[in-house]
């Protein structure tokens, strides 16, 4: 009884901060099941990494959120209300397959796309000027899109995705076509958007950027959700109790007496130090390992090695 009340309270508390709730979505196309019983929620103000191998159903789910296609069953709540056409103006979507009218002038086109999102012409021009200045592409305003490099076109597309300041932003492979410098700029912009209160769904195969900017993860595989949670929790969940130790000296003879529950996975001899990766078998603790090393050598560094998203991705998808 008491527990139930707590659960209800917890539910209410969560609902307040929930921007999107996806309940039991099913979607099939003529020849295959694209989504099968997918449920999860996205809290306000987080960056959610929507991950999965090709064909897992990510794009289908994103298109359903954008009301481009509709689920066979299940429901989606946006701010606790069933997803409705009017929510379109509170969503910014950068599709994976994206482009611009090649023959149209950049500024003219940006105004058009901004107005389609419900901005007035005046408002659109003002905000575009701001963004064009920020990205240093003002001089391109009157040029045709076909004269722009791929990276510049991507910048324009990013701008028109965020121009109407939506509460929810969906980026599908936003970094494709960007050089490392522009990728960094884009990452910073996405983080700024988050700071300003936007909720962001990031779908990408670039695991490094997922680790850098995502707070939460949803992993789809073969049309089902197979993993969900905070990035830090997931890393903890998948950790292999690995630690890296670097100690001074070139003598490693004392390691022969290392107890059974510590396994050396790799050993590397440096100029005047040795680096090891050690796996600890619970219930042994890292401190126990340190206690073994301290009498024998000078420890230079000691750190837990958490699995990378790349490893987690491959492990969960192939298992």
């Amino acid at each position, binding site marked *: 009884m008491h527990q139930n009340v707590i659960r209800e309270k917890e539910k209410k508390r969560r609902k307040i901060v929930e921007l999107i709730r996806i309940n039991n979505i099913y979607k099939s196309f*003529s020849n295959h099941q694209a989504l099968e019983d997918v449920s999860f929620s996205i809290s306000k103000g987080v960056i959610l990494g929507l991950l999965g191998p090709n064909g897992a159903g990510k794009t289908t789910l994103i*298109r359903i959120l*954008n009301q*481009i*296609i509709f689920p066979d069953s299940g429901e989606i709540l946006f701010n606790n209300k069933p997803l409705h056409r009017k929510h*379109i103006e509170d*969503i910014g*979507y*950068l*599709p994976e*397959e*994206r*482009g*611009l*009218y*090649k*023959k*149209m002038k950049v500024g003219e086109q940006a105004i*058009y*796309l901004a*107005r*389609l*999102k419900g901005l007035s012409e005046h408002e659109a021009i003002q905000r575009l000027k701001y963004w064009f200045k920020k990205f240093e592409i003002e001089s391109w305003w009157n040029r045709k899109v076909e004269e722009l490099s791929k990276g510049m076109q991507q910048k324009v*597309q990013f701008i*028109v995705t965020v121009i109407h300041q939506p509460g929810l932003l969906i980026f599908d492979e936003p970094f494709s076509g960007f050089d490392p410098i522009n990728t960094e700029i884009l990452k910073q912009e996405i983080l700024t958007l988050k700071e300003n209160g936007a909720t962001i769904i990031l779908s990408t195969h670039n695991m490094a950027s997922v680790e850098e900017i995502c707070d939460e993860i949803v992993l789809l595989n073969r049309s089902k959700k197979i993993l969900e949670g905070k990035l830090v929790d997931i890393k903890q969940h998948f950790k292999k109790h690995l630690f890296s130790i670097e100690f001074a000296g070139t003598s490693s003879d004392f390691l022969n007496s290392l107890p059974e529950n510590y396994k050396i996975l790799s050993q590397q001899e440096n100029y005047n130090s040795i680096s090891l990766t050690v796996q600890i078998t619970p219930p042994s603790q890292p401190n126990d390992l340190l206690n073994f090393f301290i009498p024998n050598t000078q420890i230079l560094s000691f750190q837990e090695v958490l699995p990378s998203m790349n490893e987690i991705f491959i492990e969960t998808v192939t298992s």
Partner: protein
Amino acid sequence: MNKTLLIISREYLTRIKKKSFIIMTILGPLLMAALIVVPLYIVHKSEKETHVLVVDDNDYFLNKFTDTKKVFFSYLSGDINDLKKKCISGEYDAVLHILGGIQSNRSNLYYHKEPSLSLRGTIEEQMNKIIFDKSLIDSFNIAPPLFATLKERSQTHIVALQIDEHGNEQKSFTEINRIIGIVAGFLIYFFIFMFASQVLRSVLEEKTNRIVEVLIASVRPIQLMLGKIIGVALVGLTQFALWIVLTIGILGAIQLSTPDFFQLEETTELVSNIDNQAQLTPADNSIALQKTNILNEINNFYSFSFSTFIIAFFFFFLMGYLLYSTLFAAVGSAVDNETDSQQFLMPVTIPLLLTIILIMPMAEDPNGALAWWFSMIPLTSPIAMLIRIPSGVPLWELLTSMGLLVLFFFFCAWIAAKIYRTGILMYGQKITYRDLFKWIKY
């Protein structure tokens, strides 16, 4: 709705700013004006009077030629080698030397400056008649006055009378009806193809540019499709309006600079003919009569159905375009490039092509079964009905055909929208007819 307007205005503005639109808008009226002006110019040019001197060694043809509006005959006898020089001095435009009189089938026509094309034909025709009449009179010994009477009686003239459902008689001029119908049919065919293809290309452009998913994240696919179709339709109507205004402008300018350019020669000539009726031979009289009727009948035709015709033309152009452009849009959404679109366009365009192929038989018999059915079937009616209208179509048939066309358009738009919304998201797949049916059912 507001967003649909936005799409319409983009489609419209980008198109009318295009160079091709501006060029077409200028070339169209120039072409139309040329079509009107050049024939008139040729008529004016060849209209100059020709004076022919007839030199007949045997005097059989003396005073036998009748002057026409352009050709005047004079008679002299003497040495042909002296007389034929008269065309060099300009006294006469041509000198006709009849060598062997009535038995001869050979004459020479001398000229210095090239005479009008029809002169030789006119002379030959008249000579044949004179020879034939003369032979008849000579062979049967008919008195010339009796012969003239007989000849007058043997002239026949057919007046075409069309009877409407109330039994009222209308003079009609079927040749012109037929030509106007055929021209209108071809025009509609041409415009439907031209503007529907623009819709197809535009859909394909958005798909290959990959901008379409960005757009349908903001607007519904149906808004995008309709916005495009309506935008292009407005471009077409703008082009028509500009064509008409500019053509009238060009013709007006010509009228101002050369006031009597559009003066119909027949009218003035008729008046003089009627004034001089007393002097006319029976044969000429009947020609004059025929001409009066032609003019009357043209007027009859225009006053009878011209406004209906114009309204019908715009209606059938617009609905035909709408019908085909929705189908073309569906095809454009289903394929990845223009080459692939051919296989799906084929069945869609077959009705149009078939109608154009059968345009002549339908114009020959505008109320026959072929023309009737084609003017009722929505895919062919925009062309077929236009062919029939100038020959008179009962109101109920016209309204039925229009109604069927509108209903069929809504049906096609519904199907096309279903194909379109799925098709635009399909990249790099070979689409089959089975896929299309699945999308419609889905």
